[in-house]
């Protein structure tokens, strides 16, 4: 039961949910649903078709004005004139239609032209004359409002008695398309278009960028003034289009038309969670906010509430929503941080002894004391090392480059290529390209001529997970199968390299084994739900892939050829250390690096997820109980899962946190994630001519040259 609880971890689910950007408006969205549900209970027939139609018919104009306001806010300003512009557009539409008796398309054009005009005035003043948006649009609000009052008074008699029977006009006002009121159809279409404009179209994205940071936008080469101008133009046009729809629906230009709509629109934006400092928010959020206010007013009126109480209730709920929303947005990251780490249950058995003289194969010894340093102080964090056929030594550096030490003495250091990211595991393919797993980027390659190419950076997304795991977040180690398929580990889909310890606290299957097929250029997920899969190595016979789970201290075997193809088995369990990279040894066995050594205290912690939750929440990171990595140890195992020997650097004087080792012509080269050198150890008993590259490709080379020779012979014969 406990195991299932920790395995399924609702906490992780909520954590990953909270991380989603679309979760930001969760509070207003929930409020909207709650309000609808409440009115559904309180008002009979609230969800009847006619009633829903009516709600949809009454809503769009307010929503348009809210969108207009939202755009101006997203651009980093505010447009207080939307209500007055809306009212004036309403009057203009009625005037042009009822008094001037223009045709409908002309009325629409005239109304929108008004929006363009006033948008250009606002935008021109704010963007080009650099006036303050708040004051500018407030002044425009006052002027337009006054003009509206004058105009409605001047034409009050005509407007009061004007009544034209026109089917198209009535269709715009009260018609439906497929059961949905026409103005709602307009809202859906234009709302979507505006959303796409602000998120996908260049000039719209520029408006958002300017709203986020005007300075940064200017530095990025965005025409800030033009973007601002466009934002107000759009705001004006949307508000006046709302006025046109309203005119067709209401046929009325009252003194109250549009009064206070700018306040409602502003409230909608704020309740919807659009940041008043600009750049943060969506059209959908403005709509949610507008819906909340609309439903609230409509519902309370339907309940027969006294008007003043309705207003008070709206004020109160707005205050509540805004207050809660502000708190939620402000503390969301903290909440997320506190609940994101979601440890699971790991039960360890007591590991084999590592005590010196205990007779165990893991017993501490001095065999790494004789290691000589290469590139001491000239390298930072050589996580993996590899050698080419000319004995040159390549390694990775923390700054994202591949460093080469030239044979034979490895005194000369040069930057071979700079990939970026944090390169980790290395491999060399048949064409002698260096392939590197790069944390944060994926798998990249460097050709012998130093040019860099991308191998892969994404795989298929897991459909049932909230977190988008299509990107390869932490590519760790790779190897190449005889078929050319590249198997590599993505150690964690939840944490970046710098947070590896947090992934360790979870002990959860966050990682996966991926396979890239160069023929189809596709990456597939071979195994998922793996606890920090780290080293990957194709067996000498090419029939299986060995990989290790660092947090579970296991070596796994995954069959890629033969009868057992596709099956996974644990080959070595309960290692005394945390395994890292695996590489082939000259005698048909495999080297395995221990990045750290288990301790009884941490093993105990792994059995108590609640303890780790408390630890992460309550004490500062530098006091966390972490896996012990201040050890230096390399072991060797064979295809039957027997551990054959171990090589120790007692006290980890020279080589702590060993993450990789590579055998080459009788030497073992040692790399470490945090080290400042590469170690070289003479292996007197090893094959003094064996190289890793030959072990992978020499056979092919032999076959290829044989074929060539035969062909040549054939030609000669004929």
């Amino acid at each position, binding site marked *: 039961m406990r195991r299932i609880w920790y395995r399924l971890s609702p906490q992780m689910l909520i954590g990953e949910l909270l991380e989603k950007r679309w979760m930001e408006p969760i509070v207003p969205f929930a409020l909207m649903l709650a309000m609808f549900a409440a009115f559904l209970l309180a008002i009979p*027939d609230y969800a*009847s078709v*006619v*009633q829903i139609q*009516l709600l949809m*018919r*009454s809503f769009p*104009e*307010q929503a348009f004005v809210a969108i207009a306001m939202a755009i101006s806010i997203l651009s980093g300003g505010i447009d207080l004139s939307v209500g007055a512009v809306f009212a004036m557009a309403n009057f203009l539409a009625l005037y042009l239609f009822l008094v001037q008796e223009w045709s409908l398309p002309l009325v629409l054009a005239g109304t929108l032209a008004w929006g363009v005009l006033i948008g250009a005035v606002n935008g021109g003043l704010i963007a080009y004359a650099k006036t303050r948006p708040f004051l500018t649009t407030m002044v425009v609000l006052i002027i337009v409002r006054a003009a509206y009052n004058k105009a*409605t*008074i001047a034409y*009050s*008699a005509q*407007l*009061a*008695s*004007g*009544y034209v029977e026109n089917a198209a006009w009535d269709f715009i*006002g*009260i018609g439906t398309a497929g059961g949905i009121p026409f103005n709602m159809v307009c809202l859906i279409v234009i709302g979507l278009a505006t959303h796409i404009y602000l998120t996908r179209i260049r000039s719209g994205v520029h408006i958002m960028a300017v709203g986020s940071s005007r300075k940064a936008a200017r530095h990025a080469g965005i025409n800030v003034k033009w973007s601002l101008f466009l934002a107000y133009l759009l705001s004006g046009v949307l508000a006046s289009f709302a006025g046109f729809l*309203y005119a067709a*629906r*209401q*046929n*009325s*230009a*009252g*003194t*109250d*038309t549009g009064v206070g709509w700018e306040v409602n629109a502003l409230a909608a934006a704020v309740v919807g969670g659009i940041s008043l400092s600009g750049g943060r928010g969506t059209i959908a959020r403005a709509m949610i906010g507008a819906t909340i206010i609309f439903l609230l*007013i*409509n519902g309370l*009126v*339907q309940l*027969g*509430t*006294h*008007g*003043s109480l*309705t*207003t008070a209730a709206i004020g109160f709920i707005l205050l509540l929503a805004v207050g809660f929303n502000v708190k939620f947005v402000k503390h969301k990251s903290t909440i997320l941080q506190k609940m994101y780490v979601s440890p699971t249950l790991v039960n360890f058995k007591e590991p084999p002894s590592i005590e010196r003289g205990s007779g165990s194969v893991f017993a501490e010894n001095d065999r790494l004391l004789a290691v000589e340093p290469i590139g001491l102080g000239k390298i930072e964090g050589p996580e993996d090392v590899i050698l080419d056929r000319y004995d040159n030594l390549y390694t990775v550096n923390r700054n994202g480059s591949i460093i080469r030490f030239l044979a034979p003495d490895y005194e000369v250091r040069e930057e071979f290529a700079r990939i970026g990211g944090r390169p980790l595991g290395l491999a060399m393919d048949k064409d002698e390209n260096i392939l590197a797993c790069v944390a944060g980027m994926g798998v990249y390659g460097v050709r012998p001529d130093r040019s860099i190419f991308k191998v892969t950076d994404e795989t298929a997304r897991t459909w049932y997970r909230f977190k988008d795991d299509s990107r390869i977040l932490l590519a760790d180690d790779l190897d190449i199968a005889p078929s050319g398929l590249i198997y590599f580990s993505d150690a964690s889909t939840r944490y970046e390299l710098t947070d590896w310890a947090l992934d360790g606290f979870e002990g959860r299957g966050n990682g996966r084994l991926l396979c890239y097929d160069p023929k189809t250029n596709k990456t597939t997920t071979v195994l998922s739900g793996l606890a920090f899969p780290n080293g990957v190595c194709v067996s000498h016979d090419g029939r299986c892939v060995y990989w290790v789970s660092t947090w579970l201290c296991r070596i796994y075997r995954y069959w890629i050829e033969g009868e057992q193809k596709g099956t996974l088995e644990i080959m070595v369990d309960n290692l005394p250390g945390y395994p890292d990279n695996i590489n082939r040894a000259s005698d048909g066995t495999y080297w395995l690096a221990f990045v750290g050594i288990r301790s009884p205290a941490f093993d105990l912690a792994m059995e108590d997820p609640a303890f780790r939750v408390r630890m992460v929440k309550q004490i500062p990171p530098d006091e966390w109980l972490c896996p012990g990595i201040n050890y230096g140890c390399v072991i060797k195992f064979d295809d039957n899962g027997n551990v054959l020997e171990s090589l120790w650097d007692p006290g980890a004087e020279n080589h702590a946190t060993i993450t990789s080792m590579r055998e080459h012509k009788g030497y073992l080269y040692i790399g470490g994630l945090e080290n400042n050198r590469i170690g070289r150890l003479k292996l007197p008993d090893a094959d003094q001519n064996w190289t890793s590259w030959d072990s992978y490709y020499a056979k092919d080379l032999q076959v290829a040259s044989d074929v060539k020779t035969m062909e040549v012979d054939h030609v000669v014969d004929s």
Partner: protein
Amino acid sequence: MSIFSGRAFAVRAGLCLAAVAAMTMSMALPSQAADPRQQLHDDFTAATVGKKIAWVPVWLGVLESEWTRVMKENFEDKGIEFVMRDPNFKSDVQLQAVSTLINEKPDILIVQNPTTTLLARELKRAMSEGIKVIQVNMSSNTTTDAYVGVDVPKMGRLLAKEALAVCGGGKGSGKVAILQGEATAAYSLDMTNAATETLEKDPSIKIVSSQPVNWDANKASEVMTNVLQQHPDLCSIISVWGPQTAGAAQAVKNAGLQGKVKIFVGSDGQPADCDMIDQGLYTKNLSYTANLQGEQIVTAALALLQDPRPAGSTHYAFYTTNYWVSGPEDRRYCFTVSK
């Protein structure tokens, strides 16, 4: 609510008693159903009890609250369901409320139109859906089953005649200012037009200002302050409604012209109107007594409920009588507001 609950209880108790009595009587005298007076009562009951009447004012001001109170008391007494929706002076909300009510299909819909056009289309739809519509005091461009309210042009003429009596024929400066309500509301529009026509018959009269103040005392105060600055010799003010005029009267008082500028007001007879008369701030107030008007709305509704013809068949008009209030002795034409 609390002001109604005691009464509602009494009404309910009364109804229960009546029902019990009716049952006893019908059990005791089953053969007397053909009694003409009993028949009348039975027909009335069949036409009214359990019916639904919906009411949408512009908002719940003093005037509308008085109407609502009278309607509620009467309809509950007759066993009629009565619902009220308060759009609180928002025309879009009022339109929504009316549309929703039409979908709920009450038997009678009573509305107060903020403008002549806003509800015109929906009222037509209501009648085509079989809902009888009564418009109160402020009508729309759609004529419905009944109109209950002021004979607005007549009221305008009466007010104008008072102004003429004081300022016309060369008396005083002849300058008159008109304070309209909402420019596109029938009540204000028609009253202004009638008053203007009447005033213009006298060439010595100059209408120096005729502006809408949207039922708002503050706005009326602003407007009147400006008018008085330009025309300190203003003779008279005609205002279409009481509460907004309070602001104008204050402006007149502030200008030191109280008593010199005659103020004639058409209003609903809310207590403040009579108070203003008592304080000498208004010269004369033409009251249409909202409480009595409320009774008339009830009467119209009851008549329509008992009328078997479908919605849209009749065009009843129930014009209310206006009463002049010119001193404390006319208090009876103002209603009282229970606290």
